[in-house]
């Protein structure tokens, strides 16, 4: 019997996501959990991380949780405000961004991302939000980390739509297309961290209490099981930051 963990799956996801941030990263983050994970990193092990928001905000320091990138709460404390061309153009396309953190509707084994449309089992299509800056971030950031919940339908060997390219696209390495960034290096879920390397997807770590085989079974893409580590459990400091400051209403982590 396992003791009931002292954190939610969403909290574990935010913490595991935050660990992908390296101190000194220049990071562009997408809507939702990536925002929480990036801010958590900045308040803990990666204080000199510089955050950028595609809407045109440099180094925000929000004091309230936000409903998305377009929620002015997220821009509070910004060091300067500019345009999207400044963030996605000068900073990102100009190769000054070391880390992109993105959500995904679906991913494949090379970390390519679909945020455009899904196809149900009956063949019907359903549209979603499209790229926004997602394609640009996945194209140009030195590293891209995908943050999403771990549901089998969110993994696909062949995506119905490649919104944003991973390490390989259509069987070819990404640099053959002229892409400048390094591509997806990790898919962080609420159960595990899947590293995307030259050989494809590798189970890098499973979160405390998760069984690697069960995770693999619920991950319907080619995935090297290997001998995954256990993801560090959330610390009291991390949980306190999430609960008191970053997501007090539990919009993202509960």
């Amino acid at each position, binding site marked *: 019997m396992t003791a009931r963990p002292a954190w939610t799956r969403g909290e574990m996801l935010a913490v595991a996501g935050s660990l992908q941030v390296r101190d000194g990263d220049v990071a562009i983050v997408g*809507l*939702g959990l990536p925002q929480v994970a990036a801010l958590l990193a900045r308040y803990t092990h990666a204080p000199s991380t510089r955050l950028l*928001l*595609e*809407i*045109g*905000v440099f180094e925000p320091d929000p004091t309230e949780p936000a*409903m*998305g*990138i*377009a*929620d*002015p709460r997220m*821009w509070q404390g*910004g060091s300067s*405000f*500019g*345009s*999207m*061309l400044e963030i*996605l*153009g000068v900073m*990102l*396309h100009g190769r000054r961004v070391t880390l992109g953190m993105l959500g995904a509707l679906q991913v494949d084994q090379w970390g390519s991302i679909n*945020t*455009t449309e899904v196809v149900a089992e009956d063949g019907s*299509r*359903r*549209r*979603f*939000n*499209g*790229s*926004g*800056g*997602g*394609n*640009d971030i996945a*194209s*140009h950031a030195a590293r891209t980390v995908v943050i999403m919940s771990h549901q089998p339908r969110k993994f696909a060997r062949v995506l119905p*739509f*490649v*919104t*944003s*390219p991973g390490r390989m*696209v*259509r069987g*070819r390495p*990404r640099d*053959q*297309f*002229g*892409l*400048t960034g390094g591509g997806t290096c990790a898919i962080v879920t609420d159960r595990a961290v899947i590293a995307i390397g030259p050989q494809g997807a590798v189970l890098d770590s499973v979160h405390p209490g998760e069984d690697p085989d069960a995770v693999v079974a619920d991950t319907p893409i080619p995935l090297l099981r290997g001998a995954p580590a256990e993801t560090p459990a959330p610390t009291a400091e991390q949980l306190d930051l999430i609960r008191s400051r970053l997501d007090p209403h539990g*919009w993202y982590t509960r």
Partner: protein
Amino acid sequence: MRAGPDRRESLADVVADIRDGTRLALCGFAITRNAVAFAHELVRARRHRLSLTQVIGGMETDLLVAAGAVDDLSYGGGSLDRFGPLHAVNRAAMAGTLRLVEYSALALTLRLHAGALGLPFIATRSLLGSDLAQALIAGGHARLAEDPFDGTPCLVLPPLRTDVAVVHVDVADTAGNAVIAGPTWSIPETVRAADTVIVLAEEVVDVGAIDPSHVHIPAALVHAVVAAPRGAYPTAVFGRYDYDGAHLRRYAQAAADAAGTAAYLDEWVFGTGTFDAFLSKAAA
């Protein structure tokens, strides 16, 4: 400083000048700084066959599509942030009544930037390898090319211009010099790529009241200035008013199906008659 021409107009007047089939550009972003007052007036004027361009779609976009005013939409995606997707856009696209041309946010911004600058075309390394690029190339909106200097692959995009751009700003003077507080996303490129720029402003001030070093949209580009206090409601204007989460949620729920969408438009757009009445009803 000279007084400059007085470009003030009423919302009704500027909407009267927009014809069916206009290539219209909007400047809102999801739940912030949407030209909702303008969108309402356009819906009530029953304009059709608009060709819409917007880097990130939001409530204004969804309202116009919901009303059947839009034939095609070039965008870089969109949503109501956590309040929901652009239901009307997604439904119309699935039904085939709306032609979608989809970009990344940067790629569409670059097309507008090229249009603004009069560049013959513009090259990027975004979109490469994606299905977005495949669809754009198939539609004639992009081409694969080689960098003429180093031979590496890249994507070239034609400039994009529109007939009219509508933007909601904080302050404008009567000649059209306009100021935006906070981030400006693709507003600079969108307004500069339009033949006609309509500025809706929270506050309209005299010429000379704005520091010329702080102007985001120079009067030389602006054709009409419309006083529109709270005109972005229920979306947010940084430093002035918050989005109304309850109203956005109400809209997102209504827009989830066609009947709800029609009922929302009847009650909140057609039924109110004016934006002031809409604001009063929403505040009640």
